[in-house]
Structure formats: C-alpha cells, structure tokens
C-alpha cells in the first residue's frame, strides 16, 4: 500500500518537473509550429550554467533565474538569426535545431568536461518530510509547488494579459493576427525566449535530482516530446495534464511492468496518438 502511495506522490513531483521542461516546448511549437529539437540542449545548458554560477557563490534560486536568462539570450539569438529565415520550413527547422543541439552538447563538453556535476539541494529544502505517513524528499515537493506556481503564472499571462491574448491569437490564426496588426514576428521572438528561459530554468530546478552530465539533453528531449504529444501542443492545460500523466505512467509503469521499462512511455503515447492524433487537449491536429 505504501509503495503505491509513494509512487503516486512521486508521480506528482516528477510531473511538476516535466511541466517546467515541456511548457516551453509546447508554447514554441504551438505558436510558431517549430519543432524545437534544441529544447533538451537548453535544459542541459541551463543546468551547466548554474553550476558555474553556484561555484561563484550565487544562491540556488538566483542562479536558476540567471541561467534561464543566459539560455533565453542564446535562444533569442538563434531565433532572430536562424529560425526567422525559415518560416514554415519544417524540415529545415528540424535540421537546424538538431545541428544546434550537437554544437551545444560539444561546447558543454569542452567547457565543463565530461564528468558529471552534482548540484546541491538548496539547504532549506534538504531532507525529508512526512506526507500521508510517508517520508518524502522536501525538495521534490517544492518542485511541484514551483510547477504549479509557474502554471498559474503562465495561465494568467495567456488569459489575462494583452501579450497573452496576442499569443493565443497567433496560435489560432497567425495570418489573421497579422491582419489585425499584431507584430507577429516580435511575438515569436518573445515566445521563443520565454520557452528557452523555461527550459534553462527547468534544467537548474532538475539539477539537484538529476545532476548534470553529457547526454542529459538527449535523455530529456524525448520526455518533453511525449508530454507535448500526449497533452496536445499549443495548449498549456495540455502540457500541465500531460506532464502528470507522464509522471504517473513513468512511476507506475516502471514499477509494475519492469519488462516493458524501455517502452513504458512510448506504448501509451502510441495508443493515444493512434486513437486521438491531436492529443488530449490539442488545439490543432498535431
């Protein structure tokens, strides 16, 4: 009984981390229709940047925000110089984002070497606390809290601000949005930077759980893709729900079906895609 409880709570915490990772991807793909395969690299780059900042004495949360900014700047440069020239050219976007991910991975290897780097859990959140009678790591609970806060914040941004309204208009009908006078290209840059910031920030938040090491980018990207596909791209609610579903699938799948551990995420995703191609909450057909 306690096993299932523990897995359930962990599903929620893992879901929180996945939401932070995939929200940016969903936003970028939903608005700009760009499959940003550099997303995993953004995550890893953010984590690596934070190790350098923390080594220089910054505290964890400041490092997280600043690392996200660093990644956002990088993302902005990529968007303006490269992706902007390729509107609608899906294959070219795949090629360039993959190429960039190779480059980022190699630069990280050169700068931070191949050894794994540990990120200390912020001191206030070390240790466990009791949840429903179980000992649970405080930090992981904090991660879910952060995810909920960000989900609420992003929701407010999208539903309650002018910027959000413009983003939603751009997602629903880009050409119409232009006609109405929305500066779609500037919007694209803002959204891409926001998505990149979220990914970098998520990388730092995930650091105390995952550490940072070469190959982290390739491990996290498929997870983001699964979440966005399951939940439906371009939908914040989809990312949110999708993250927790994936969290549950991961935890219970690995524990109950160890034989299928390698495919425990892809099999359900396949089923959902075959049955409902636009995902659970997707706005357009994916």
């Amino acid at each position, binding site marked *: 009984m306690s*096993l299932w409880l*523990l*897995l359930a709570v*962990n599903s929620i915490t*893992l879901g929180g981390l996945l939401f932070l990772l995939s929200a940016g991807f969903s936003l970028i793909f939903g608005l700009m229709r760009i499959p940003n395969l550099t997303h995993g690299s953004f995550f890893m780059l953010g984590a690596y940047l934070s190790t350098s900042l923390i080594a220089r004495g910054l505290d964890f949360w400041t490092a997280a925000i600043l690392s996200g900014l660093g990644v956002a700047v990088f993302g902005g440069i990529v968007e303006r110089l490269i992706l902007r020239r390729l509107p609608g050219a899906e294959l070219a976007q795949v090629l360039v984002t993959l190429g960039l991910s190779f480059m980022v*991975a*190699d*630069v990280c*290897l050169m700068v931070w*070497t*191949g*050894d*794994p*780097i*540990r990120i*200390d*859990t912020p001191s206030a959140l070390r*240790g*466990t606390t009791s949840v429903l009678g179980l*000992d649970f*790591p405080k*930090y*992981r609970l904090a991660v879910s809290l952060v995810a909920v806060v960000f989900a609420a914040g992003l929701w407010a941004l999208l539903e309650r601000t002018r910027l959000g309204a413009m983003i939603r208009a751009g997602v629903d009908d880009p050409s119409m949005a232009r006609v109405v006078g929305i500066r779609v290209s500037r919007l694209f840059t803002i959204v891409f930077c926001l998505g990149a910031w979220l990914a970098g920030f998520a990388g730092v938040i995930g650091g*105390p*759980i*995952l*550490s940072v*090491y*070469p*190959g982290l980018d*390739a*491990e*996290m990207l498929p*997870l983001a893709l699964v979440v966005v596909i399951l939940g439906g791209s371009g939908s914040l609610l989809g990312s949110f729900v999708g993250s927790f579903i994936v969290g549950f699938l*991961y*935890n*219970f799948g*690995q*524990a109950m079906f*160890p034989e299928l*551990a*390698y495919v425990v995420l892809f099999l359900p995703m396949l089923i959902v895609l075959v049955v409902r191609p636009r995902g659970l909450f997707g706005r357009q057909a994916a």
Partner: protein
Amino acid sequence: MAVRVSRRTFLTGAAVAATTMRAPAFAQQKPVKIGLLTVKTGPLASGGIQMEQGTICFLKDKNYTLAGRKVELVVADTGGNPAGTKTKTQELVERDNVDMIFGPLAAFELLAISDYTAQAKMLVLSLAAAEDMTQRKPNPYFIRASATSSQNMHPLADYATKELKLKRIITIADDFAFGHEQMAGFQRVFEEAGGKIVKKLWPPLVTPDYTPYLAQISGADAVVQGFAGSNPLKFMKQYRDAGLKLPVLGGSTAGDEALLKSYGDEAVGMITCSPYTGDLDTPTNKKFIDRMVRDYGNIPGLYSAGLYINGLVAEAALQKTGGKTDDREAFTTAMRGASLTDTPRGPFTFDHFGNVVGNFYIRRIDKKGDKLVNTTIKTYPKVSQFWTYDEKWFLSQPVYSRDYPPLKS
C-alpha cells in the same frame, strides 16, 4: 571556435630518445605505434577522456620510449557506437598500421571488433569487462589487465558475508550486460555462503528518476549497486534524498576515484571493490597520480589507471621481445607472460586467457577534511576471473546474465 588537430604524432626529440638508449644502435627502427580507441564525444566521454589522459601520462613518464624504441600514439574517437568503433579499428589496423590497440572503452564496442582484430592478429588491451572475451569465446590476441565484470564482485560478496555478516541483500544495476554480469557474480558467491538475494532491480540504462526502484528497497540488510558512468552519482543522491538508510556496497565504477570529486556526503560509507585504488602505496602509483594531478588537475580513477597499466604491460612485453612486434604470436605470448609488481594496481600476472590475476581492493569512502577519499580496508590477493571455482566447471556453466544464476528462492 578553435578546432584543433590533435591526433597523431607525439614524437619527442632524438636527444631524449638517446638518453634512454639501452638497445643496440640498429634498434633505431621505425617507432612502435600504439592505437588508442576511445570515446571523446557523447555520454561515455568522461571515461574516454580519462583513458587518453592515462595513456599520455604513461608515455610522458617513459619519454615516449619503450624498450629502446620510440613510441607514436594514434588516438581514434569511436563516438561510442559499435559501427564507428569498427571503422576506427580498421583505420588503425589498415591505414595507420599500429602494433597494438589500447581500448576500446565499452563492451559492445569490443564485441563488434573482436573477430576482426583476431583475424588481423592485432593485439588488443582493453578495459571492457565482457566476460566471454576471456572465457567461452576467447580472443587469442586479447589482454585484459583490469577485470571481468564479476571479478571484483566475487571478493565483494565474500567480504559482505564474512566481515560484514550481511544476510539479505537487494541488488540494483543498469539493465545491460555489464550490470547483469556484475550482479550475477555477486549473487553466486553470496548465495553459496548462505546469503539471500531478496530481489534484483534493473532500471534501464537511461533512467532520470530512480524512485520507482527505490520504492521497492526494503526488507534487506544492504543494497549492492553496479551503476556505471554518471548513474552512480544520480542514484546515490536520489537514494539519500529518499531517506533510505541501508548501507550501500558497490562495484568498481560505483566508487571510482574519478567520481569522488562529484559526490556529496551521500557517498560516505559506501564500500566498493575495485582492481585499482588511489591509496595504494606503490612508487609507480604515486608517480602516476602526481602527474595526473599536475597535468590535468584530476585525481585518476580506474579508466586512466587502466591505460597506464596497459602501457606498463606493453613495455614489459617489448622488453621481452627486444622491441620486436612483427611476430604477433611471440609478442602476445610475451605480453601474457608478463609478471609485474610495481604498478598502480600492485602485482599481477595473466591467466592463459589473457585475463588478469591480481589484487582486488575493498575500499570505503571516507571524508577527509572536505574531500572524499577511498580507504582500503582489505586486499584480496591473486584473484582470478574464476574466483575460487574450478576453471573447467566455471566455463561449463552458462555465462553470467540477467537470469543466470537463477535466484535461490
């Protein structure tokens, strides 16, 4: 973005070579070429880079001269995939005409090239732990100075029952051949001594979150882990964060010296068994560690030590053949016949399969000041890949795998 040409020739001046003359004048032959197959890109890069560093440290200590002959090092990056390894091996054998190959890093890389190198009669000195390379499918030109996957786990199990008096254990390791073979070796010795393996957990090689497995750890005295690469770091952190308190034992990769700088306090107290230990007090080990720290700023672990040791083995063989490498059979025999005492891992010899018979060290991770170090608490001498079992019996059993030996429940 600097793109370096950093491969081939590391020749030193003739003056330096002249100061190490011991062979007659006509031995100014063409240099001995060593090909290094390593991984410098991707997730396996940390081990691969250490392998290169260890090799270069050795060559620098010997002034790039072995048995009177100059040495040329050719480094090839396999990318960590078998097809790439095959191509690079062909390059070393056919294009660069190397005399011997150090590496490759991973078992699946070695298995991809073994038939080819055996056919080409190319000597391969590798750290890859695949059991059958020196057991049921032996390669006659293969030398392994490190260990098989289970070679260090047998003594660890012995230590666990005899000294730590552990009775029930849960094993957890990456779900691939290296993990399977390690845990199977531990299991055999542990169960024979009357212990019980409560369960064996196998998370996939790529597992961001170990919680579904950590949640199943209960009802035992200790946990034995066999993770490799950067997984031990992730695992130990998540283990402690989950509030688990059972003592942890590990294989050679789990407590490796090179990983200690990345660990936090969660690793203190972990007991591992390895063919190499940083606190071994031999002159060569001290010299090796000093140079590694001086040149690269890193405490060396078994990947760099393993390559340094390969260098010593190659040197011993060259000294025996008078610097000659063209007679491959004689060269291999000389290498397998090597018996060394002053090495970073202590004394060792080889069995007739080319696998090492030597010391294995049980160490515990302690905190000294603000650094973590390994402290050797017991040494098992002259450990072979067959432990105390009769070789014929051992080989007649199936190879260690995920389900063999079956759990005695």
